[in-house]
């Protein structure tokens, strides 16, 4: 099972003016790994398919804002 988000840490210089943002993420969605879609893959119901944006759970890659927790941090700092 492949993950759809990878992380790396960019170089931090002591001369950087701003505090480091921290590890950076990038997306590795399913089409990178699936190859030619095989026959007979499990399907969503029509409503679930519409909600997810695809008929097949095997083709679904979710996305959430990776900065959400960062925003909460900044908000609580005041």
């Amino acid at each position, binding site marked *: 099972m492949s993950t759809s988000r990878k992380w790396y840490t960019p170089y931090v210089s002591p001369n950087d003016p701003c505090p480091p943002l921290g590890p950076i993420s990038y997306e590795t969605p399913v*089409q990178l790994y699936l190859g*030619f879609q*095989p026959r007979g893959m499990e399907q969503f119901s029509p409503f679930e398919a519409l909600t997810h*944006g695809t008929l097949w759970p095997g083709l*679904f890659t979710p996305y959430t*804002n990776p900065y959400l927790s960062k925003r909460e941090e900044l908000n609580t700092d005041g």
Partner: protein
Amino acid sequence: MWYYEKKLQYPVRVGICNPRMAKFLIEQYGGADGELAAALRYLNQRYTIPSRVMGLLNDIGTEEFAHLEMIATMVYKLTKDATPEQLKEAGLGEHYVDHGKSIYYHNAAGQNFNMGIQSKGDPIADLYEDIAAEEKARSSYQWIINVSDDPQINDSLGFLREREIVHSQRFREAVELLKEEQSKKRVF
């Protein structure tokens, strides 16, 4: 021949009255990697692409117009009840002066759509252009989700992002179909 169906592909909802979001969403309307660019790209390439994949280009190109309409709907809902003063505050003053309350094909930075699409006539080059276009559109949706506080807009953006993933998957399959040796029949 094109026919129009009088319904959106997806139930678009905008929950929060925040015209500033329209400025970001317009990127996918008139931007270089937006839905218009995608539709024009695929529908143009389809004339001369090998017949095996003509249907795919035709159909994905058509679906992109449905997505264009979804973005337009979000922008329309966010701006139709705004005063010129509110549009100015939202960073849409320049747009208003040129276009009034109408929508227009430009990107988030205000640059008009400039036909930055390619049709190279080489099926492999064209399909990789198309895969890249889908990955770029997917990225744009991710960035817009990152600056949006509206869960209902994000719901539609999530749908559109997943469509880019599926389109990318299909274009990759199209490459495989064209790579196939003529004498061998593909068996799944």
